[in-house]
C-alpha cells in the first residue's frame, strides 16, 4: 500500500527513534511511504489557539501535498497530536465549501488546493494497522510473538477525543485498538486507569507541577498494574512519559523507571527486528528489561 506520509516534527526532532523505527517497520508491512518533506507543522493545537484560520490553512497545505502523491491510498501520520490537530482542521475545512475556498486561495501560489469529499483520509499508523492491514493479516506476519510481555497502552488524548471528530461512530473500536494490537502481537495488554488520560505534555512549560503529576500518576498506575512497559502512538506523550520520567518521580514521591515504547518499536519487535535497529537504546528510561525479555523469546 502506497501512502503519503507525514512524520511530524517531534519524530524528526527529539524522538528520532520513532522516525527510524517506522522506516524499518514499513517495508515489513508492504507500506510504501512517500514522505511529505516539504510539509509544515500541524500546529499541535497551539497555532489553532493563536489563530484558527492559520492552523486550517497550514494543514490544508499538508493535505493538498498529500493529495498530490500519485497512487497513494491516503495520508499516514505517526503522532496522536498530529492526528487530532489535523482532524480538527479537516473537520472545519470539510464543513464549508466557501470557507475552504478562502483557505485554498492561500495555497494557490504553490499550485496547491485541498479537495474535500471522496474517500481521502488521514490516519495514524495505529488506524492503518487496524483498518487497512487488519489484525488478522498482521498476526500472520508476526515472527516473534511478544509472549509474556505485559504492555500498558497509552493513547494520547488527541487520538481518542472528541470521539465524534475522530471517527469513533464509524469505527467504535478506535479507543480499543492498542489493546487489540498488543494481543495480536502475542503480548498481554495491561489494564490500568491512565490509558486514555493526559500525559501532561501540553502543560510542561505552563504548569510543570500539574504536568508531571499527570505523567507520574499514569506511570505509577501502569507499574502497579504489573506492566513491563508502556506503548504510545504519540511522541509528545513519549517526551513527558520517558524524557521527563526521572523528573516526574519527585511529583508522585516514588521511584518509577518503566520504559515507554513507540508504537512502531513494539510492532517491529514482533516482526522480528532487533531492539537496536529500532532505536531502543535512545530512550531516557533504559529499555534493557524489555530487551532481555525479547531476547529470551528469541531463544525459546
Amino acid at each position, binding site marked *: 500500500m502506497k501512502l503519503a506520509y507525514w512524520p511530524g516534527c517531534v519524530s524528526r526532532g527529539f524522538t528520532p*527513534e520513532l522516525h527510524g523505527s517506522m522506516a524499518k517497520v514499513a517495508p515489513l508491512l508492504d507500506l510504501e511511504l512517500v514522505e511529505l518533506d516539504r*510539509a509544515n507543522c500541524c500546529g499541535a493545537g497551539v497555532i489553532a489557539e493563536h489563530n484558527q484560520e492559520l492552523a486550517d490553512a*497550514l494543514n490544508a497545505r499538508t493535505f493538498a501535498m498529500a493529495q498530490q502523491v500519485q497512487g497513494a491510498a491516503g495520508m499516514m501520520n505517526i503522532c496522536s497530536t498530529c492526528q487530532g490537530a489535523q482532524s480538527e482542521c479537516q473537520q472545519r475545512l470539510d464543513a464549508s465549501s466557501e470557507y475552504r475556498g478562502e483557505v485554498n486561495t492561500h495555497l494557490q501560489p504553490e499550485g496547491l488546493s485541498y479537495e474535500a469529499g471522496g474517500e481521502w483520509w488521514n490516519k495514524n499508523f495505529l488506524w492503518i494497522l487496524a483498518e487497512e492491514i487488519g489484525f488478522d493479516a498482521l498476526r500472520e506476519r508476526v515472527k516473534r510473538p511478544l509472549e509474556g510481555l505485559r504492555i500498558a497502552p497509552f493513547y494520547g488524548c488527541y487520538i481518542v477525543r472528541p470521539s465524534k471528530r475522530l471517527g469513533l461512530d464509524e469505527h467504535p473500536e478506535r479507543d480499543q485498538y492498542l489493546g487489540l494490537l498488543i494481543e495480536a502481537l502475542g503480548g498481554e495488554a495491561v489494564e490500568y486507569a491512565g490509558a486514555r488520560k493526559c500525559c501532561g505534555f501540553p502543560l510542561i512549560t505552563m504548569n510543570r507541577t500539574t504536568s508531571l503529576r499527570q505523567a507520574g500518576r499514569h506511570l505509577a498506575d501502569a507499574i502497579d498494574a504489573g506492566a513491563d512497559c508502556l506503548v504510545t502512538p504519540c511522541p509528545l506523550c513519549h517526551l513527558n512519559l520517558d524524557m521527563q520520567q526521572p523528573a516526574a518521580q519527585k511529583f508522585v514521591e516514588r521511584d518509577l523507571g518503566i520504559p515507554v515504547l513507540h508504537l512502531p518499536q513494539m510492532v517491529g519487535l514482533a516482526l522480528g527486528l532487533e531492539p537496536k535497529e529500532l532505536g531502543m537504546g535512545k530512550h531516557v528510561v533504559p529499555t534493557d528489561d524489555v530487551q532481555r525479555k525479547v531476547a529470551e523469546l528469541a531463544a525459546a
Partner: protein
Amino acid sequence: MADTQTFQLKIRRYDPESGAPAYWADYDVDLPPERSVLDGILQVKDREDASIAIRCSCRAAICGSCGVRINGRSALACNTRIGDAAATGRDGFITVEPMGNMPVIKDLVSDMEAVHWKKVRRVVPWLVPAEAPPEGQEYIVPAEAMLDVTQAMACIHCGVCVSACLSMEVDPEFIGPAALAKAYRFVGDPRDGEEEARLRDLAEDPHGIYDCTHCFACVEVCPKDVAPMNQIMRLRRRATSDYGIKDENNGYGHEKAFVTLIEKYGTLHEAQLLPRSFGDGSLVKGQLKPSGAKQLTRELPTAFRGLKSGKVTPRKALLHEKLPDQKQVRKIFHAIESHDERIELNLYIVGEMGDEEMGAMAEEAGET
C-alpha cells in the same frame, strides 16, 4: 416500542452518617433499552430500595441535576440510554458512581457547592457593564455580536465537565472547564466592560486558563456541546492576541514561541521552545530574564538526559533547517495575520455537517 429487557445496575453506595465505607450494590431493572439510566435508578428506588440518593428533576437534560459517572464516563443519567450503557459496561453490568473531582454527600449526590459553584463564583459570573444603559432603555446588542458566546451560554451547570477534567484530577485548585466557559460568556459579551481585567486575572492565576491540559475530556462529555476547552482557548486567544498579556505562567510565551518558530522554520525547533517560552517568545529574553534563567536551569537535568540518551544531539539543539518552501509558509502567516478580523468558523453555529451534504439532502428532499 422495544421490548422490556433486564439490565444489571451496579451502584456506588455511600452514607457518611453510617460510618461505613463506600460499597457497590447490584440491582436488576426491567426497561426498554431506549429508556435512560436515570429511569433505571428510579425504578430501583421505587421497587427495591428507596434510600438510594440521587438528584434529579426534569429528566430531559435541561436542569442538569443528575450528573454521575456511568461505566467510568461522566454523563447525565437522564441523557444516557440504558441499552447504550449496557453495551459499554463490563461483564454485563452498568456501573453508576457519583461524579469525580467533587466530594460525595451521599450515594450519587456530589457536593456541587464545594467545587463547582465555588469556582463559578471565582470568575465573577455576572455582567459588569461598560457604561450605564441609555436613559430609560435596556442595552441593545445586535444578535450577531452575541453569536460568539452562544455556545458558552448553552451551559446548564451540571458539572459533568468538572467531573471529567483531567487537570483538576491532579490540581484541585484549577478553576476548571465550567467556570472558565462561564468566564468567556462575559469576556465575549460586547456589553461587558471588564474584558481586559478578567483576562489578566485568569491569565495570571497559576490555576487559570494556562492550567488547562488540552485533553478534550470536557468537550467529550458535555451534554450540551458547550465545548468548554474551546472557550478556554478563546480566552487564551483574546489574552495573547488582543491584549498581549504577558503572564508569569508562560502562557503568552509558549504560544508566541511556538507560532514564531513555525513562522521561521516551518517545523518545530524543539530546542528553542522552552527558552523562548520562558522569555515571552524571545530566545534572548528567555535566557537573560531571571525567572527565565531559573526555569531553564530547572530543565537542565532533562536536557542532559536527552543528550546522554542520544535523542538530542548538540547539532540538533543548535541548528534547525527551514523547510525548502518556507517563504511560502511565511506568506500564509503574513496574509492571514494581517486581516483586520479573525476568521473563525464555529461549527456549533454553522453545523458540523458539510454544506455539500446539506445541499444534497435539501435536493433529495425537493425531489421526493
